[in-house]
Each structure stands twice: as C-alpha cells, then as structure tokens.
C-alpha cells in the first residue's frame, strides 16, 4: 500500500481550494531565496518537474505560482495512524515502511476476509471514504512484486500479480523497477544491453556474478520476482537498520563518517519512537566491487542514544583498513528489547538524552529533515 502524494493530498483534502492545483510541501521558498528542501509535491506540481528532496528555491523557479505550504508533520502522523487502524482490521501483520507506505501480509486472512483482491479493494474504499485520500495498492505473492505493482499505476492504482504470470508481469518492465537498481547499476546493465527485467532474467547467474559479484545472484533472483523476506511488524523486528547507496562511490573518510552519523541518528530515532533499545551495533559496508561485509560490537547495556551508536559505528569503521571506495553504508541495531528504563551513568549527565529528546520532538512535529546532527572534526 502506497499513499498517493501523501502530504500534499492531505492538504488538498483539508483545503478544497487547493484541489487540482500544484501544491508543494516543504520549507518556505522566500520568493526563490529559501534554503530548505521540498518534502512532498502534489501530482499537479510534479508535472512541473518538482519532486521531493529538491531545493525549495529550484521548485519555486520551476513553478512560482504553486501553493507552498509548511510541513505539518504531527498532523500527517495522526492521519497515518488512522490508516494503520484500517489495515489492522484485516491483518495484524502490518510492516510500516514510512508514514505513507506499508506492507500487509494477508496470507492467513483468506477464510476470514475473502481473497486478497477483495480485501485490497475494501481497504482502498475505506481509505477513500474515511480519510478522503487515495492509495495505490499492489497485490502479489511477495513484497518485491507487491511494491512494483503498487508503483505501477499511480495514482489510485490497483494492480494484482497472478502468481502464475509473474514472468508476463515483470519481463516488459524497465530494470529500474527492481529494488536496489539505481542509476549506476542501470548504466552497467545497459552496457550489457539489458533494459527490461526480462532481459536481465535471461542472463545466467554466472554471467551476472562475474560482473556484479555476489550482488549478481541477488539481481538474478529479483529479476525472476523471487523474494522471501517476511512482513515484519516493527514491534517484532529482530533488527532496525538504515542504509544508503552513494550515487558515486565514496573514498572520503570524513564524508563517510558524516553519513554514518546521519544513519545512526535515523536508527536511534526509530528505536526511540518505538521504545526499543538495542545491544549490538552493526556496521555494513559494501565496496565498489559489491563485496559486502558487516562488523558488530555488542555494548554492555542496551541503548537508543545516537551518540553511543555513532561512537561505536565510528570505531568499527575505523578498524576497517580497506581502501577501496565505498558504495553503500548501513547502520543497524540487533538484540532488541522493549525496555522501560534507562541505566544512568555516574560520569554522563543527561545532556545527550535531553538533546535526543528535543530533536525527537522537533522531528515528530516538523519531519525528519528539520534538524540534523553535525560534527566539529
């Protein structure tokens, strides 16, 4: 399930005068002088080339007559909660990816609720009736296919992938539709004359492996629509992690550390918002030839503190003596538990905790990009 232009649609729903108009949610454009970014854009605004994460000044230049609105994050959170309530009527197995995106496992609900298609249509209808919003839904045998299907006919899409016709469904699609295929891999695949998922699936594992290393095997499976990752509700998660693939392989140590700080904050924020703590910190690195490794460090006491996670990740990173440029970095926490207490420390005041709490408040109110951590060295 993927909501259509979620933040913008919520604003258009609440302000009928905005319907059909280009709406941009984000920082104040200040007549083109603003320095923030676009958080979301309505479909009307997207026609002008405006998209999220774009500098707001650029968006203003592309479409000065668009309606620019500030982010009302706490409000979108509350709308998102209501969507979750609708999903929970049909299955307890809801994995929230973000405020406007979720996976639902309907495997066990057929008898009770009818076929997945029926349930999907009902959810779509309930979202429209109760929330006045449109969602795009993809129904498929696994998460990979469901994600592709939900993106296919946006907005207000509804795509069902028949498990007997996976090839028919996937083969004509461009390779960019696959998870983990970004501009860079796409270019490499294009060099091999691979343009569609069908082209990719015709390559043998060996050929792909020789070109992409272990990732080649993954690509092969994905190209055949194979994915066995389970739908995991966050409260049962075994690990929480965030990762990022660089647009260009990165060799600069300081730049990597900055990214690791940012990822640590993301992971810590998610743990804090779910009242979960983790004991083992995991660093994931994938270098330019797709060699991937992870390093772990188990702490003495579970934590959800950004600075503790970052310091540990930094140590793990600095013990890595490989000089190869890095393609992907990830930070994760495992050994999770729901805890209702914090071990206090003789030599640490609660300054860091207060900072975390203040940052979380801002993020819950204005969105995750409102406040960032910086380093002085």
């Amino acid at each position, binding site marked *: 399930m993927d909501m259509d232009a979620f933040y913008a649609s919520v604003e258009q729903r609440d302000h009928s005068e905005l319907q059909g108009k280009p709406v941009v949610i984000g920082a104040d454009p200040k007549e083109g002088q603003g320095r923030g970014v676009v958080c979301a854009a309505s479909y009307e605004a997207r026609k002008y080339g405006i998209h999220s994460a774009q500098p707001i000044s650029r968006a203003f230049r592309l479409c000065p007559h668009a309606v620019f609105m500030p982010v009302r994050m706490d409000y979108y959170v509350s709308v998102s909660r209501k969507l979750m309530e609708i999903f929970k009527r049909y299955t307890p197995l809801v994995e929230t990816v973000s405020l406007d995106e979720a996976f639902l496992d309907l495997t066990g609900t057929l008898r009770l609720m009818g076929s997945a298609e029926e349930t999907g249509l009902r959810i779509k209808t309930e979202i429209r009736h109760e929330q006045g919003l449109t969602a795009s839904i993809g129904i498929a045998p696994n998460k990979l296919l469901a994600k592709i299907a939900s993106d296919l006919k946006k907005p207000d899409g509804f795509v069902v992938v028949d498990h007997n016709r996976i090839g028919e469904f996937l083969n004509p699609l461009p390779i960019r539709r696959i998870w983990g295929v970004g501009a860079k891999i796409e270019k490499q695949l294009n060099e091999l004359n691979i343009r569609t998922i069908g082209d990719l699936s015709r390559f043998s594992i060996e050929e792909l492996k020789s070109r992409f290393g272990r990732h080649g095997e993954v690509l092969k499976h994905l190209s055949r629509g194979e994915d066995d990752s389970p739908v995991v509700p966050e409260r049962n998660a075994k690990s929480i992690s965030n990762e990022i693939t660089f647009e260009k392989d990165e060799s600069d140590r300081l730049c990597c550390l900055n990214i690791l700080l940012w990822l640590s904050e993301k992971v810590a924020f998610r743990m804090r918002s779910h009242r979960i703590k983790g004991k083992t910190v995991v660093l994931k690195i994938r270098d330019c030839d797709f060699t991937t490794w992870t390093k772990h460090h188990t702490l*003495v006491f579970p934590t959800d503190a950004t600075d503790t996670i970052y310091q*540990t990740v930094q140590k793990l990173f600095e013990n890595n003596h490989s000089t190869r440029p890095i393609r992907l970095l990830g930070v994760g926490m495992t050994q999770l538990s729901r805890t209702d*207490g*914090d*071990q*206090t*420390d*003789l*030599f640490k005041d609660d300054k860091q905790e207060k900072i975390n709490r203040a940052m979380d408040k801002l993020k819950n109110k204005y969105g995750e990009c409102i406040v960032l951590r910086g380093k002085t060295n």
Partner: protein
Amino acid sequence: MKFTILQNDLLEALQRISGVVPTRSTTPILENILFELDEEKLKITGTDLEISITTGVTPKKIEQTGSIALPARVITEMIRSLPAIPVQFELDETKRVRITTDQGYYQVAGISRNEFPDNPSLSEARSIELKNDLLRRMFSKTIFAVSSEELRPALMGVYMQIMPDEFRMVATDGHRLSKIIDSSFRFDEAGIQMIIPPKAVQIALKNLNEEGNIKLQLNQGGLCFIFDNTTLYTRLVEGEYPDYEKVIPRDNDKKMVVDRSLLMATVKRVSLFSSALTHQVRFSLSQNRLAVCSEDADIGGEAREELNVEYNDEPMELGYNAQYILDILKHVDDDKVVFTLKNPVRAAVVKPLSQKENESFMMLIMPIKLNSQEHQ
C-alpha cells in the same frame, strides 16, 4: 639445552603462566612459551605483549643450558596428561625438542629465542613494598566494577592510589563504583597512582601469597609484581582516571538497612523473570518493607517478593540492574548492608553496617531510570 624435571613441578609452573598466553594471536610467536635454562634454574615466560609473566622452577638435573620457544598448548596439554614422573627435555641443532619419559618420546619443533619478544625492562623504576593480604583484599573488592566498555578506556582498569597516609583502590564502569581505603598504610614518598588492567589483577590474585610482603616496581608505562619465584609485568592503562570523588553523593539522606543474604536470595529469584538484556528489577520501598519486582515484556514473565527492612522515610520506587546489585552484595562481608539513597535517579551508596578496623569500604550503584520517572 638439556634437563630433566618432575612432571608436577613443570605443570605447576606452566599453570602459573597459562592465563597470559593467547590461544590464538595475530602474532603467532605469542602462542609459544619461552624456556630459558641457566646453571641453576629453568625460567618459563608467556606474554601477550600487554602482560608478561616469568616463573622459575628447579629441574632435577641440568646437563646443558640453552633456550627455545615451544608451542604453549601442546606442551601444557602433554605435561598435564602425564603421570608424576621425571621428564627429559633435549634440544637438537635443528631446533627440535625431544621430550623423553620412561614411557616414550614426543618431539616438537621449537622457535629461536630471538623471535620471542624481549621482556620489557623497567628502567628508572620506583619500588614499593606492600602486604600480600592487603593487596589481595583491595584487588578482590574492586576488580568486579572495572569497565569493559572500550568507549572509555581509562575505566578499563583498577585505579590504585598510594598516598603518604593511606592506600586506596577504586574501580568503576560508570554504572557502579567500588572504593576501598586502608588508613593504616604509611608511605614515605610522594603519592603514586596508576590504572592496572584487570587481567593483570586477576593473575596477581592467583599468585599472591596469604602472608608476607610483595615488591612492586613501577615506571612510566608499566608495573612489575615480584612474587617469590614469579614476576608479572603489565603495561598500565593510559589516560586520566576521572575525578570519582566528585560523583560520590554526600547528601543521600534516606537509609535502608537490610539482611545481606536475604536480599541476595530475593534478587536472584526475582531477576530470573527480568529482561535478559537489561536484568532490570524494581525496588519499591515503604515503611520497613521492600518489594522487589521484575517483568519481562518480551516473554511475558513477572515476579514479586517482599521482605522486611529497616526504612523510615517516604516511599520510593527505584530501578536497578539485578546483576549489579548481586555483585555489590557479594562483596559485602557484613551480615547487614546499608543503602543510603536520595531519589530514584541518584546513585545509591552501599556499605557494610560495620567497617573493618582502619578500613573504609563503599560501593555505588546507579539506578535505572524508570520510564514513569522520565520527566521528573
């Protein structure tokens, strides 16, 4: 090198150094033991570069002096599995050692002495003499609180302070602290302080005699313990030890006195039902009554016990790591333990009800802040 030694004499010596030799090292030579034989004695040495330990043993018969490094694991296992019989060691020109008993022979390749790291020399060392029993007591009352968290390296050791009129030891990992002071101690020179790694403390505890004195030699980076026929050298932990006196609360005004073994048994039972990751237990204090509870939200476990204590202040709810509580109680010699408290987020001071003569022993335990108290 050629000598004959009794199996049990050699085994005893090997066991004295066994705690130091790493079983697997990125520097393979460290997995060996250095044998050095002079006209009177066999010296064996093991090291992990942080700590080295050398011990002497007298063979039954010395025929030719010499030295060689031999693989620690196979030699120790072999000697351990022999009965108490004489064992002959003989080194040939190809650096092989043949070990012969009346039951057969065993041959092993040795490594030249030159490849084994030299013993660190303690140039310009100061000497200190301490009583064995005092050092043993102070070590064993503090070592449990040493930090294993690499994020704060200075806390990864026992802090020893030798002052003109007292001898102190402190260890803390930030969650608990143990401090012991002997005030009968006299030292003629200016104060000395150092941070000793816990592994060295453990080995020292194993080698300290019940009675008598021990000589310590100290220089900038290292400390040497000179036991009867064993010397233990350790590098000291670098860094500055934090000002621990500053974090010891002076105004804890509420007092709970409790039977040590009773509380220990209670906490042990209740903590079986606490989260395996946090070991969190809750102390609910009321007039002369203490309830200890736990719950594990992840597996749905729960426990609660009550016991009588002496307490005459306002009711309080405190969270603790059960393992820290048990560690602390284990180190109290007295039947009665005194907790002094201030509030649920302040360190508790724990002491035996009566102190030994010339001794002041106290421990601190930091609470777990319970979520209901988060915004106080």
